[in-house]
C-alpha cells in the first residue's frame, strides 16, 4: 500500500504455451504494467483445479486470473475449453462464498499478445482496486490487518 492507495494482491494461473510466453514477451519488450499479478505457471489452463482458485482466495488473494490459449489454439487441443467450463461453475460457487464475480477472471492471451497481457494486468488490477480488499468472513484474520 503505497501513497495510501490500496494495492490488490492478485494471483494469475498462466498456461505455459500461450499466456506465460505472452507475459514473457511483455517483459522482454520492457512493457510496464501493474506488478500486482503474481504468476503461477501451469502447463495448460485445463490444469487449474478449482481448489487452486479457492486456495488463492483463502490465502489472501483479492483476485484470481486464469489465462490460457485462445479457443482452438490450445497446445493440448482442448484444455482451455475445460478451463472455460470450470470457470463458469466456479463463478457460481464464488458467489455463494460472497466473493464478487469481478474478482475472478478468465482471459485468452496468446504468445504474441504481450500488449494484451499488459492491458489485462492493468485493467484487472484497477478493477479489483475499486472493489477494495477482500474480507473472507470465516478466515478474515489476515485481511483485517490489511486496511489502508
Amino acid at each position, binding site marked *: 500500500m503505497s501513497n495510501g492507495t490500496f494495492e490488490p494482491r492478485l494471483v494469475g494461473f498462466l498456461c505455459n504455451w500461450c499466456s506465460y510466453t505472452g507475459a514473457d514477451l511483455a517483459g522482454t519488450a520492457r512493457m510496464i504494467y501493474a506488478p500486482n499479478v503474481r504468476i503461477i505457471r501451469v502447463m495448460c489452463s*485445463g490444469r487449474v483445479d478449482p481448489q487452486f482458485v479457492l*486456495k488463492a482466495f483463502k490465502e489472501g488473494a483479492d483476485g484470481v486470473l486464469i489465462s490460457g490459449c485462445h479457443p482452438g489454439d490450445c497446445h*493440448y487441443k482442448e484444455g482451455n475449453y475445460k478451463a472455460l467450463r470450470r470457470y463458469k461453475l466456479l463463478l457460481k460457487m464464488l458467489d455463494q462464498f460472497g466473493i464478487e464475480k469481478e474478482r475472478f477472471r478468465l482471459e485468452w492471451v496468446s*504468445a504474441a499478445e504481450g500488449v494484451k497481457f499488459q492491458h489485462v494486468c492493468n485493467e484487472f488490477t484497477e478493477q479489483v482496486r475499486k472493489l477494495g480488499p477482500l474480507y473472507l468472513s470465516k478466515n478474515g484474520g489476515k485481511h483485517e490487518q490489511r486496511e489502508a
Partner: protein
Amino acid sequence: MVNLTIDGKKVQIEEGKTILQAAAKCEIKIPTLCYHPVVEAYGACRVCMVEVTVRGKTDLVTACNTKVQEGLDVQTGSERVLKARRLNVEMLMARAPAAEPVQELAKALGIEKTRFEIKDPQEKCILCGLCVRACETIVGASAISFIERGTERKVMPPFGEPSEACIGCTACAYFCPTGAITYEDKYGRKVIHTELHLGPTTAIRVPIRQAVPMVPLIDTEACIHFKTGECKVCTKVCDREAINHDMQDETLEVEVGTIILASGFKPFDAKRIPAYGYGHFPNVITALEFERLVNASGPTGGKIKLADGTEPKAVGIIHCVGSRDENYNEYCSRVCCMYSLKFAHLIKEKTSADVYDFYIDMRCFGKGYEEFYHRLLHEGTKFIRGRVSDITDMAMTQREEGKLIIRVEDTLLGTVRRIPVDMVILATGLEPSIDHNQLAKIFNISCSQDTFFLERHPKLAPVSTFSDGIYLAGACQAPRDIPDTVAQAGGAAAEALALADKGTFALEPVTAEIDEDLCAGCQLCVNLCPFTAITYDKEKGISVVNDALCKGCGTCVAACPSGASHQKHFRDSQIFAEIEGIFVV
C-alpha cells in the same frame, strides 16, 4: 498400311488417315484454311480440293476429310484442281475480302479480283465453322453457332452478344484462320499486360523455371477440360502420352523425426489500397509483375513495355506498399527497398525513362546494399522521400495529359508534389503464406503479432519453435531476402541435423500418474484425455496412464474427483505451496 501415289510420289500410310496427312508425309503442300489438326476436318472452305483416281474412276474431293485408299492416285495441282480451287477462292474473296489468308491464297493462284459481288469489304469471316466446331467439340461449350441461311448466314461471336455458355476461353479466336474473331477488354482496349497475363499464360505449364521436378502441371482452375469435360488438346499433341487428366491429389503419410517449416510468403494484395489504382489503371503493376515483364524469358523478352506496347518515358516506384502502414501491416517487409533499387537500375539500363523512387527510409542494410544505393544515386534515379497518397489519371496541366499522376508529400522539400509518369510499380510487401494459420494449428506453433511464425527466442533460438523438433526457415518466420534466407535456412538444417543425429528425443517429464489406491474407477479422466493416453484397466478397476502418449496437460488431474491423478512436477501440493509462497511477505 495403305499404298497410294500423290503427284507421282509413292507414299505408305496407316489406314484411316486422310489424303492431307498422306501429302504432308511426302512433303507435298496442299493449301487449307479451315483445317486444324486437333479439330475434326469438315471440308468447309474447300480450298484443299484435289483430284483422286481409284479403280479408273476420277473425282474432286476435299483432301482434309477424305480417307486414303489402297492404290489411290492423287493429283494436287492438275488443271481441274486449280480451276475448282480458283472458283472457291473467288467465292471466299467475295464473302470475306478482308481475310488475309484468302488474299494470299488468291495471289498464289494468280487471281486479281473476284467476279462475285462483295457485300462487306471489311468482312473477314469465311464461314468455315472451325470456331463453331472447336467450341463444340474441343471446348465443349457450344457457345457459338451459325445463324441464318444463304448469304445472311453468319457466326454469332461470343463477345458480340455474350452467351451464358461462353467460358471466355478465347479458343474460337485461336482457331479462326482469318483473324475474324478478336477479343478485347471491356473498355475496348487490347491490353498487353492482361493479354500476356504477366504470369502463367496457359493452363498446362511448368510452374516456375526452377521447378523441381521440372515437369508441367495442369491448372485445374484454368484448364478447359475441367470446366467442360472436353478439350484434352494437350493429350493429342503429346506423343509420349504423358498427360493424364484423371490424376488425383494424393495424401501421402511420411514418418519423420524433425520438420522444417518453409512455407514462405505471399505478396501483399495491391488491390487492398484503392488509392493506388491497381487493377484499374493497366500501367499500375506490382513488383512481381514487373519482375515478369523484365525477365528475359518472360512474355516481352525482358522489354519494359506499357500496356499499349510502347516504352515508358517515366516510371514511378512506390516503396512500402502494404508495409509500415497501420492500416495494413505495421512491419517492414525488409526486401522491398533493395528490389526497388534493382528495378530502378534495370529501368535505367534498359530504357531512357526517368525513374522516380518514392521511399520513407532507404533500408539498404545488407552487404553491398548501401554501395548499390550509392551507385543508383549517381545513375540519376530521382529519390523522393515521402509516402504516396494516391495515383490518378486526372490531368491538371497539359504535361500531365495521358499520364498517371503520383501525388506525394515530399518530406524533404516539405511540399505536396504531383509527378506524372507512364508506369507505376508497387513495391508490395510480404505476408505469411496463404495457409499459414492452418499450418500453425497443425504444427501447434504460435504466430507473433505480425502473424508470421513465432520463433522460440529471437536471439537464442531464432530457428526453433515451441514445439520441439519443428524448425523454421525463410520468410514464414519473418520477411527476409535471399542471402539471409539461405543462411538462416542453413541454421534450421543444422538444428534438424543435430536432432536427427542424436536420434532420441526427451519428452517433458510432466506426465500424469494415477494412484492405484485412490482411483475409484469412475473413468472421468478416460473421456477427458485429448490424447487417449488413459485407459481403463478392467481387471484392477482403475484408470492407467500411458506415459508415452501423455503430453502433460494435467486436465485429468484437475478433474479427478477422488484426487487419484497427479501431474509430476505440477502436483497439487506443489502448486498450493506456490500459492502460499506468494502471500508470505
